């Protein structure tokens, strides 16, 4: 048990915004062996234009948050290819699952980095289709980060209330 406890003893606390940025870079590095570059970070509204496929995950607790990871389909296809060696040619169940799992990992990792024991992670939801929009009933003003990566561009839109 002592050995297991050391895993969390080393955790330090960072603010939710940095937690999401760090968690995103880490997930790409570890899951895809892929480095990412932040292109632009700007204040945004939830009613924005997303890419072809988007995963949404909620964090609830003293601080409430929503994280959206949105991918052009070619980026999502290449992510699947890197993980399991299958290159999809359409957005199917496997692609949705992969994008959802990405949001799960980023959300979970961000939660741990904030070191807030009240925070709980929801299950991811995945939306796809051309020009889709997502209504997020949140009072938090979101931040949008555009990324480029070895497997293509993607976007992370997230906001926290109480932060």
């Amino acid at each position, binding site marked *: *048990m002592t050995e*297991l*406890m050391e*895993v*969390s*003893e080393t*955790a330090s606390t960072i603010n939710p915004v940095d937690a999401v940025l760090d968690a995103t870079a*880490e*997930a790409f590095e*570890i*899951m895809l062996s892929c480095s990412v570059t932040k292109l632009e970070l700007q204040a945004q509204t939830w009613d924005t234009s997303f890419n072809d496929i988007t995963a949404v995950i909620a964090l609830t607790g003293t601080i409430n948050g929503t994280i959206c990871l949105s991918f052009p389909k070619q980026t999502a296809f290449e992510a*699947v290819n890197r*993980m*399991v*060696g299958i290159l999809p040619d359409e957005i199917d*169940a*496997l692609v949705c*699952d*992969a994008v*959802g*799992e990405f949001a*799960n*990992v980023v*959300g*979970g*990792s961000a*939660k*741990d980095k904030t*070191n807030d*024991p009240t925070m709980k*992670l929801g*299950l991811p939801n995945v939306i796809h289709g051309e020009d889709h929009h997502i209504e997020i009933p949140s009072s938090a003003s979101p931040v949008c980060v555009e990324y480029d990566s070895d497997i293509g561009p993607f976007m992370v839109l997230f906001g926290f209330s109480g932060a």
Partner: protein
Amino acid sequence: MNILVVDDSAMTRMVAKKTLNSLGFDNVQEGEDGVQALEIFKEQSIDVVFTDWNMPNMNGLELLIEIRKINKDVPIIMVTTEGSRSKIVEAVQNGINDYLVKPFTPDSLKEKLTKWVSVTA
């Protein structure tokens, strides 16, 4: 060696299975939630369990508790995004053997498996 991988993400199960196969472990069973995994566990002789925590129907902690009612010894390793101290304590108190926080690398999965295979051998 019969290994049970439990995760509601098909992608994660595929990645885990691919890694385990590459290490020479060909008998890998898959469960997409705790309910399905418990059925597999009761029907087959399972040597090691890797399970996610957050899953629909029956989560990984509930699965752990159910398996411990019928088997106190089988190594169970939680592979999850839940890496907080309180969660680890809860899992340890309910009989988890080891813990791997997502995202995981193939090497970290291999390390955990090697550790528990050598312990039980």
